[in-house]
């Protein structure tokens, strides 16, 4: 069953500085949700409130419509932005310890630790002290720490920063597996290209307020203006003279233009008649463009 984690009108301030203003959004189970925002936009504070590390000034966090109990929060998995594990503990020992703190039996914690280390290709490092691990391995260890107790909700603050592309793939595979069991997975990132590629849903936060949230496709559709891309074998000089067309980019046989769908169809018909069309497509905005637009 897919769970649903929701924030309802959450506000929080530090002293007189309002960090979160009326923040509401949902994180759907079974999907990976990207949480995007500039530095200082309120991502970490939001995540800490979800985890119960910080209390909101007002508003609440619910799971499947019910307010969160302490017991449920203990079943969350969290990877904080500031990475940290005990430097002088052995990797496997530490993961087993964290699993047991979450309430696993020693045997279950051991089993889960072994399986995770295997998946994250850390098995050979199981008995190394955490401080002796390479930076990339520490990062993977941190993800293992968030996952060891098979959490019901997974919250990760910048999980991919500092990972090489191969590590990104192995971590992503683990997250997708977890999400596939119906668990809501929320991760923050300021690397928009990674978010664009990895997540199913998106939440954009700026200046303590949610600016956009929904599925990636939906957001794209919402923010695609009627912009088209056209490339032909011949010359597109005539395009500028077409009524209802505003040419934005032009280079001989290539043009980007704004027009209503009907006008665009007419342009396409004309282009086909004039020469062979190499490419015609609605131009979808990249996440970076949507982001720039919504945080304005």
């Amino acid at each position, binding site marked *: 069953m897919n769970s649903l984690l929701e924030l309802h009108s959450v506000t929080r301030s530090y002293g007189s500085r309002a960090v979160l203003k009326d923040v509401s959004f949902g994180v759907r189970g079974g999907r990976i949700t990207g949480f995007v925002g500039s530095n200082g936009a309120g991502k970490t504070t939001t995540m800490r409130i979800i985890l119960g590390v910080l209390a909101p000034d007002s508003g609440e966090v619910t799971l499947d419509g019910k307010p969160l109990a302490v017991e449920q929060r203990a079943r969350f998995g969290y990877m904080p932005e500031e990475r*940290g594990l*005990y430097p002088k503990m052995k990797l496997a020992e530490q993961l087993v310890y964290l699993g047991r*703190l979450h309430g*696993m039996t020693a045997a279950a914690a051991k*089993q889960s630790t072994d399986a995770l280390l295997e998946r994250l290709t850390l098995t050979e490092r199981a008995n190394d002290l955490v401080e002796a691990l390479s930076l990339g391995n520490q990062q993977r260890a941190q993800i293992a720490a968030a996952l060891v107790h098979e959490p019901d909700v997974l919250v990760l603050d910048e999980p991919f920063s500092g990972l090489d592309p191969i590590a990104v793939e192995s971590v992503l595979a683990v997250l997708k597996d977890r999400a596939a*069991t119906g668990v809501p997975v929320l991760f923050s990132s300021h690397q928009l290209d990674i978010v664009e590629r990895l997540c199913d849903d998106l939440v954009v936060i700026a200046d303590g307020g949610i600016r956009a949230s929904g599925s990636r496709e939906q957001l794209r559709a919402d923010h695609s203006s009627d912009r088209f891309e056209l490339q032909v074998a011949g010359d597109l000089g005539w395009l500028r003279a077409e009524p209802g067309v505003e040419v934005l980019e032009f280079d001989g046989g290539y043009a980007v233009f704004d027009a209503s769908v009907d006008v665009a169809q007419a342009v396409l018909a004309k282009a086909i008649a004039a020469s062979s069309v190499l490419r015609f497509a609605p131009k979808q905005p990249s996440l970076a463009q949507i982001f720039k637009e919504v945080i304005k």
Partner: protein
Amino acid sequence: MTTSYSRPTPLATTWLIAEREIRMRLRSKAFVISTAVLLLAVLASIVIGSITSQNAEPAKVAAVGSAIGTVSDTGQFDVVEATDRAEAEQLVKDGEVEAAVVPDDASPTGVSVIALDDSPGSVLNSLSIRPSLEILEPLDHDPLLIYFVSLGFGVAFFMSAITFGQIIAQSVVEEKQTRIVEILMATVPVRLLLAGKIIGNSLLAFGQIAGISAIAGIALLATGQDILLADVGPSLVWFVIFFAAGFVMLAALYSAAAALVSRTEDLGSALTPVTMLVMIPYFAVIFFNDNDLVITIMSYVPFAAPVGMPMRVFLGTAQWWEPLLSLALLVATTVVVLLIGSRVYANGLLRMGGKVKLAEALRG
């Protein structure tokens, strides 16, 4: 979803945390070695003390003629017989004997004592005729013994409190500095985190103190100093009991103070007030161990009671109910300190960067 676990009880969680603290400490070579050295030092000081006191040979005293009988009658000296006064004087000059005793009809005791450059107190004392003496309120204890016992309590408390206080503070800051505290706070209630830390380290400190007391007791018995043991024993037991409560209080103070800083480098300044608090009873008991008023006050001031009250039990100046009253006071204070300390600890944990102001941490 997998259900290979259940919500652990607070007790189980606390113990899990305490157990990790103990495990990590016992894994530290520095800790194991310093504990072993401490125990050996206590053992050695008692054994060596016993050997030197048994081996104190009687002083050599030369005696001439009828004085030989007089000196050997005291049973305190090794008598070297000399044929005449000149030979006895030569023995004194050569440093062979401490003093010489020769017959002297002019002296009321019938002998006179010859020494090189200083009056030989023990010889004079044993040969003098003294008026009979009656002490109305005899001192129970040798002042030197009082000094050593007070020093023992003071040093043991001071060393353990400082050592384990530092260890707790380090452990708090380590979690804050490595930021694992965020994961921990998202996993277990903060007060259990603090409780586990305090219990784990208190058990270690308590174990060390109990170990020292036990070794001291066994060593005293083994070296035949059981009279001293009977004398010190009850106060030793009270010391261990008071230490247990007092240390929990100090542990709470140390953790709260440590939670105010984010880096090990800043620990020193944050801990100074707590360290002062520990040093006061240490110095007080050393300087004022013969001052009844100061010791009595100390025995009721919570952070000084672990040293003050066992001292009074040892001196025999405490009524039977006094340790109990003082202990109750100490336990009550400990509870209050724990409440305030856990608040400061919880509020300090997530504040990174510079030093958090105490008032700020109290407000939350």
